[in-house]
C-alpha cells in the first residue's frame, strides 16, 4: 500500500520533524502575560525625599532603566503597576501613599527604597511611619541611605522575578500575593 507514490519506509516521519514547531511557540497564557508584564513594569514614583534623586538617576541615561522596560514612570496611579516608595513616609503623607496604592490597578508590586521607607531609618520619631509596610504590603526592600541606582535596578530585577514566580504559582496571580479584597454586598 503506498501513499503519494511512496512506500512506508520512504514516507517522512512526521513525529520527528513537526513542521509547526518551527514557526509556532506554545506557552501558558499566564506565563505569556507575566513575560509581558515583567518587561514593561510601569513604576509609580512615590518620591518623598532624597531617594527620589537616585530614582531619577536610575531613569537617566547613565543607568537607563529602559533596558529593563521600566522607564515609563507614570504619575497617575491608574496606569502604574509598581510603586517605588522612595523617601521618608511621614504620618501626614501616609494617607496619601495608602490612597495612591489603593488607586493602582491589580496586580501591583511595591518597592520600598532606602532606609526611611523600609524601616523609618534614622527617624525614630513620632511623625514618621516606621516602615511603609505598616500601611501597604511591600515586596522588595532596598537598604541604603540613599541606595545607589544599581541597587534599585537590582530591586526591579527582583520584582521581575516575583512577577514570573507568581504567574507560576497561579492561584495568587490575579492579586499578586496580596489578600483578595472583600467586596461589599456579596
Amino acid at each position: 500500500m503506498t501513499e503519494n507514490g511512496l512506500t512506508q519506509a520512504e514516507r517522512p516521519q512526521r513525529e520527528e520533524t513537526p513542521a509547526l514547531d518551527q514557526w509556532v511557540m506554545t506557552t501558558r497564557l499566564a506565563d505569556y502575560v507575566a513575560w509581558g508584564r515583567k518587561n514593561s513594569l510601569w513604576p509609580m514614583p512615590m518620591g518623598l525625599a532624597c531617594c527620589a534623586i537616585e530614582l531619577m538617576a536610575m531613569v537617566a541615561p547613565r543607568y537607563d532603566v529602559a533596558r529593563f522596560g521600566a522607564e515609563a514612570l507614570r504619575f497617575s496611579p491608574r496606569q502604574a503597576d509598581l510603586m517605588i516608595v522612595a523617601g521618608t513616609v511621614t504620618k501626614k503623607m501616609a494617607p496619601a501613599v495608602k490612597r495612591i496604592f489603593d488607586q493602582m490597578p491589580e496586580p501591583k508590586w511595591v518597592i520600598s527604597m532606602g532606609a526611611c521607607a523600609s524601616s523609618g531609618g534614622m527617624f525614630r520619631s513620632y511623625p514618621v511611619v516606621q516602615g511603609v509596610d505598616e500601611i501597604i504590603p511591600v515586596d522588595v526592600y532596598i537598604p541604603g541611605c540613599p541606595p545607589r541606582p544599581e541597587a534599585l535596578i537590582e530591586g526591579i530585577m527582583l520584582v521581575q522575578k516575583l512577577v514570573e514566580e507568581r504567574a507560576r504559582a497561579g492561584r495568587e496571580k490575579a492579586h499578586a500575593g496580596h489578600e483578595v479584597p472583600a467586596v461589599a454586598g456579596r
Partner: protein
Amino acid sequence: MPPVGQPVKRPGPPGLLGRTYLPSILKGMWITLRHMFRPKVTMQYPEERWQVPENYRGLPALVRDDQGRVKCVACFLCEYVCPPKAIHIEAQEIDTGVEKGPRVFDINMLRCIMCGYCEEVCPEQAIFLTPEYTTVGLSRKEMIYDKERLLKMGGTRTDPIKKWSRLTRSGAQAPGMTGAGRDAAR
C-alpha cells in the same frame, strides 16, 4: 516715566514655511542626529559595575583576626553611636578570661544608613563598612543580619592591634606585659 532698557523683541507670526513646522522639526532631528555620534554613557549594569573606591561605605560587617577569632569585644560603642540604632548587641564572657565577646550582634540593614560611625568609633577595629551596595531583600526579617552572616561578609582582616597576645591572662607572652594597660603594652 521713560521706558528703561530695550523693548523685548518678540517673534512675529510664523511665515508660510514656519507654519508647516518643517524648520523646527528639522532642527530637532538635527539635535537627535548629533547625539547618535556622541560617546555612549550607559553603564550596562548587571554586566558592568563601578569600580568603587577603597573607602566606599557600603553595608557594615564584622571581621575576624588572622587567627580566626572574632575581634569584637562587645563594648557597645557602635551600638551607642549608631544614629538610627541599627545595631543590637548582647555580650557574653569568652574563655580567655579577660575580654568579653558578642553573643548576639544584629545589624538591621534597613535601619543602617552607612554613615561609618561604627567603624570610626570601634576601638578594636572589628567592624568595617564593605563595598557591598547592591543587596536587596524580600522581607524585613531577612535584612536583619546576625553575627555569623556579618562575620562571613567581613572575612579576615589583619592589623597591628594584637589584643589577645598581650592582654590574656593565661597566654601572656613577654614578662611585664601582663595586666598592663594598652598604652603600656604598646
